[in-house]
């Protein structure tokens, strides 16, 4: 079934038309030999193309765009090395269920399999890290394939879909018409939760006296943050979120316990362990969350709401599974539940919160990383915060005060260093109304610092705040705690002058070396309205605290600030 009349176009033009039909406004990409026909048609189109400096950044930028807006991000590269450079970005999006379509050029059909110049089997390579992928073998399939790609990427549990486009497919003529709907007999995601299961869950909630809600990134993906808060307030249960679930409930909400798990708050972890009912929503019981699996929430019955049936009972046995969309199910569930008897439980939680707050030793001569995040939080209220991976990521998660969903973008599942800066560019392109701050480390920032050129050339005023400790800090912390302070290959001091680096690219470069300089530097970066880098020289051996050692139960949590 198709809409409108057909018209004769070449494959590349057909691709542009498909993108327009899907409501795409921006692409992130990098051209090359086997994708030139597509770029030639792009030249005449109204689509915005952000030219990155490395294809990995195109994938991360599309990811950041998607997480910030909820729309499907699109990235483009050529064949071979262009396509393989996308791989880390695609894997990052796959692990965090981000809707993305990746378009890759490919050598002409007749040469596939001959080890042609810049040939790589990107369909084979990305098979385990895409939700689905295609190698287009007939140009007439293009409209159907593109329709399916966007449908699969954005529905159910979202994820990246790759479409590999041999050069001859891009130049052959087809009769173009865009299908109205997809027909995929093997793909029918469940949205509405089973009503019987919803009622059973409501009964279970009524019986509970120590309930806790464990909310993951699925709540954000499903745009269910408001429904989550209403549900929590209705049953008066505390909420703890995963790293990717941050923003599902405001940081300052009285029922919010912050993040749980390895670097979660003590009170979130204690509450999980003491709870008698665990309500997991859009979360997947990742090892960084559960710690030692056998001792996770030992006294709790488990309700698990997730759109992906394969997540049910994957790691933790579930008593009441509800498969479907978090938004639908939370709405339905809220209708059937009443406030449960949680007063004593909430009192206990307040006690824990008072006794074991997130804390760090304040000092006047060195810059504490947590202090920097607090300053960013005050100066950049309601900003979109993007992070790289490592200590700074955890400090950002712990100390920034979030008030709405889609404002904390971080590589949770794959843990990709170098994600943050390009993702921040993508986020800013998608949400130009928002201040976008990449909280970074000196290690991670160097993994994609070439993207300063992208930000400057396209005038994308993203702020990077580098928590510079001269170390690959998270690895150094593990070496300090578990490897007898043998700092093998983690000292990166003296790598580059980030202020000069920023200036070399034409961005604003600022540095803070004393606590009193931190806030003015951040304020100046914001005021400039330009791409800016703020290099903050922090205490070099600061640790992320608290911490659950790998393999321990999550209540065996150490306070490293003692």
């Amino acid at each position, binding site marked *: 079934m198709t809409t409108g009349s057909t018209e004769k176009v070449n494959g590349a033009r057909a691709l542009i038309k498909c993108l327009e039909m899907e409501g795409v406004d921006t692409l992130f990409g990098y051209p090359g030999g086997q994708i030139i026909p597509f770029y030639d048609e792009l030249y005449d189109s109204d689509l915005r193309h952000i030219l990155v400096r490395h294809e990995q950044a195109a994938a991360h930028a599309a990811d950041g765009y998607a997480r910030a807006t909820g729309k499907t991000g699109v990235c483009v590269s050529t064949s071979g090395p262009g396509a393989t450079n996308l791989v880390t970005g695609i894997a990052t999006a796959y692990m965090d269920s981000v809707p993305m379509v990746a378009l890759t050029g490919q050598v002409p059909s007749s040469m596939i399999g001959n080890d042609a110049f810049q040939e790589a089997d990107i369909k084979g390579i990305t*098979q385990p890290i895409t939700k689905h992928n295609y190698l287009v073998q007939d140009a007439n399939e293009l409209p159907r394939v593109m329709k399916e790609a966007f449908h699969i990427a954005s529905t159910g549990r979202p994820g990246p879909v790759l479409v590999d486009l041999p050069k001859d497919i891009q130049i052959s003529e087809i009769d173009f018409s865009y299908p109205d709907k997809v027909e995929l*007999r*093997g793909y029918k995601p469940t949205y509405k939760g089973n009503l019987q299961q919803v009622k059973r869950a409501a009964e279970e909630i009524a019986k509970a006296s120590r309930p806790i809600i464990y909310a993951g990134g699925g709540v954000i993906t499903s745009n269910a943050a408001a429904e989550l808060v209403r549900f929590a307030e209705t049953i008066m249960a505390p909420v703890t979120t995963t790293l990717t679930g941050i923003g599902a409930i405001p940081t300052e909400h009285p029922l919010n316990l912050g993040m749980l798990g390895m670097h979660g708050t003590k009170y979130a972890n204690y509450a999980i362990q003491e709870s008698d009912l665990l309500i997991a929503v859009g979360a997947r019981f990742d090892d960084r969350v559960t710690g030692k699996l056998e001792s996770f929430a030992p006294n709790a019955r488990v309700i698990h709401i997730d759109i992906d*049936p394969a997540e049910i009972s994957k790691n933790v046995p579930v008593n009441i599974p509800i498969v479907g969309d978090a938004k639908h199910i939370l709405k339905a569930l809220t209708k059937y539940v009443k406030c449960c008897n949680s007063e004593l439980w909430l009192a206990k939680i307040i006690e824990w919160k008072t006794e074991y707050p997130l804390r760090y030793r304040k000092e006047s001569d060195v810059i504490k990383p947590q202090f920097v995040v607090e300053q960013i939080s005050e100066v950049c209220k309601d900003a979109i915060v993007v992070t790289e991976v490592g200590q700074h990521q955890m400090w950002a998660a712990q100390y920034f005060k979030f008030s709405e969903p889609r404002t904390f973008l971080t590589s949770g599942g794959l843990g990709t260093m170098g994600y943050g800066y390009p993702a921040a560019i993508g986020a800013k392109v998608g949400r130009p109304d928002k201040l976008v701050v990449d909280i970074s480390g000196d290690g991670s920032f160097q993994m994609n610092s070439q993207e300063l050129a992208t930000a400057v050339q396209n005038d994308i005023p993203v702020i990077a705040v580098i928590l510079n400790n001269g170390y690959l800090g998270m690895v150094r912390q593990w070496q300090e705690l578990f490897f007898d302070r043998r700092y093998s290959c983690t000292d990166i001091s003296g790598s580059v002058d980030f202020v000069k680096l920023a200036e070399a690219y034409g961005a604003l470069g600022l540095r803070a070396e004393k606590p009193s300089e931190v806030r003015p530097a951040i304020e100046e970066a914001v005021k400039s309205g330009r791409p800016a880098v703020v290099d903050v020289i922090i205490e070099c051996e600061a640790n992320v605290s608290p911490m659950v050692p790998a393999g321990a139960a999550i209540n065996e949590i150490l306070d490293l600030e003692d």
Partner: protein
Amino acid sequence: MKHTLAVLVENRSGVLSRVAGLFSRRGYNIDSLAVGVTEDPDVSRMTIVVHGDDSVLEQVKKQLNKLVEVIKVSDLASEDTVGRELALFKVAADENSRAEIMQITDIFRARIVDVGPKSVVVEVTGDEDKILAIETLLQKFGIKEMVRTGKIAISRGSKKV
């Protein structure tokens, strides 16, 4: 515990690689896999024999179902299922041993499909136990080569997967 899964998939290139990749990536053990087209030329059917406990099997089924090109996954319970495998054995044979091999072949309702001066090829169809049994008996003559199809299975009665 062994399970036999009937998996209906889109009859397209690359589907087998997706299924095989899924098993290796997630560490599930395939005992055998047989695939061929069905009564609908757009659909292929895979019969996969897999072992693991109930929770592993549950994950295997769910993960298979997540593949866009997988249409349906059914767990065939052994009591309601006819399962067959075809095996060909090339067995060393001379004038002295040929008669005995023919006798064994008869007992198993197998067939000799090729006779050479120093060997015979035995074709046998049956369930795994039967094939194992004839293999054991033929071993003493010397099995030069053996090839098996992997199990295919279909449910009894009029019920379809």
